[in-house]
């Protein structure tokens, strides 16, 4: 457990002092969302209708940008080999690193969503629900993304590859995230079933992600 906390603290410090990744993700999020009205036209009614979908897709893409960083820098300078050899189960190492990705990318993006929602005329009454689904959904994004990050460590041109591999895996998260928000926006019916399914998928990926990513790392580190 001390090892888990140590890796968590180390990676958090590295991410916060570097600061680049979080800033890039937030900047990308802002730019993608503000390009959308330029592409589909500034009609406020229509923007309000597609706002939830646009916010979710832009969030997925922004989180995708930093997935490669989960293991890449540690793999390149050799510290991943040392961490792997220090006796801590590799599954816990992956869990700590995925958790750091969620803390430094998932949470800031989810918290930025309501502000960007203003640009798209998103209905303010559903804002708490938007943030809640995104906070829960980004857990699955980080932990499933760790699998793709671990699989592509030795691959050439890994950036695009991560997207091709991981986006199909995000389909359930996206669908239940959107469904919960759209039911919350159009009152008849309860958004809770979708929200609970979304939470179940996030919890399942907390188990699946570290197992699969650790198996992938074992074939690649000494």
């Amino acid at each position, binding site marked *: 457990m001390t090892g888990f906390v140590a890796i968590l603290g180390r990676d958090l410090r590295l991410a916060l002092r570097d600061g680049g990744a979080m800033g890039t993700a937030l900047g990308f999020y802002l730019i993608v969302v503000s390009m959308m009205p330029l592409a589909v036209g500034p009609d406020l009614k229509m923007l309000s209708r597609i706002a939830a979908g646009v916010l979710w897709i832009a969030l997925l893409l922004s989180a995708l940008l930093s997935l490669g960083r989960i293991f890449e820098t540690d793999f390149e300078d050799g510290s991943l080999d040392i961490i792997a050899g220090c006796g801590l189960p590799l599954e816990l190492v992956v869990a700590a690193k995925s958790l750091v990705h969620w803390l430094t990318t998932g949470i800031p993006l989810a918290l930025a969503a309501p502000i960007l929602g203003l640009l798209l005329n998103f209905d303010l009454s559903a804002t708490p629900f938007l943030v809640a689904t995104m906070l829960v959904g980004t857990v699955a994004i980080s932990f499933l993304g760790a699998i793709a990050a671990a699989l592509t460590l030795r691959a050439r041109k890994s950036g695009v590859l991560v997207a091709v*591999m991981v986006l199909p*895996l995000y389909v359930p998260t996206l669908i239940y995230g959107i469904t919960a928000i759209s039911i919350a926006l159009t009152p008849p019916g309860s958004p809770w079933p979708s929200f609970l399914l979304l939470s179940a998928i996030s919890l399942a990926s907390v188990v699946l992600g570290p197992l699969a990513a650790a198996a992938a790392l074992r074939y690649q580190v000494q």
Partner: protein
Amino acid sequence: MAFSRIAMPTLSVLAAVVLAVGFYLAFFVSPEDYQQGQTVKIMYVHVPSAWLAMMGYGFIALSSFGLLVFRHPLADVSAKAAVPIGAAFTFLALVTGSLWGKPMWGTYWVWDARLTSVLILFFLYLGLMALRSSMDDEVTAGKLTAILALVGVVILPFIKISVEGLTIPWLGIEIPSWNTLHQPSSVLRAGGPKIHPSILIPLLVNALGFTLLFFAMHLKSMRNEILRRRVRALTMAEVQRAQAFEAEILAE
């Protein structure tokens, strides 16, 4: 190799015969639909392709499991050979589905739940191919692709349920579909198939024919892969021998 030398031609001939019978039944014997006319015959390619798209992924997952757990080298060859064939059938299911959709729904593509989940299955196949081709070391590439295939097979039910919905009355489970126009599966259902035998029998014959074709192509592809690896090993041995020979001459 000894097994496939006999099995491959046998399977190929069987596939050809069964497909010939299947196509004859489909085109000349089975009746036209009173609503859909001749276009109903697209079904005889569409349904077997969709079935093989799913079976192919299951087969890849099984081979991957064999590779990771039992470490059998042939399992990697099997998984590698099955991916392009499965992807081709998935593509065929999408294309025939969209050609069938034009006269039926009035448009080539609708975001129907089942079409969408097959499209995502196609993306999973693309991911497997992309990952394998991105690495130079074949052994590592095989193992990592196997992990991705197993992750895919775990997530596939979630994708299917989230897109197509799920209803289990006796457990009180009812998850609505994301969106649906496509008719639900009418061959595999509780209480027996819902199709008239005059259509069902040609459909089953075609499904069997395409399945035989899948395995014939799979065996051929596996043979090719094994031969390719042998040629590579021989070339490497040749290069090493030449280098040793050169060193000997230099030493003299």
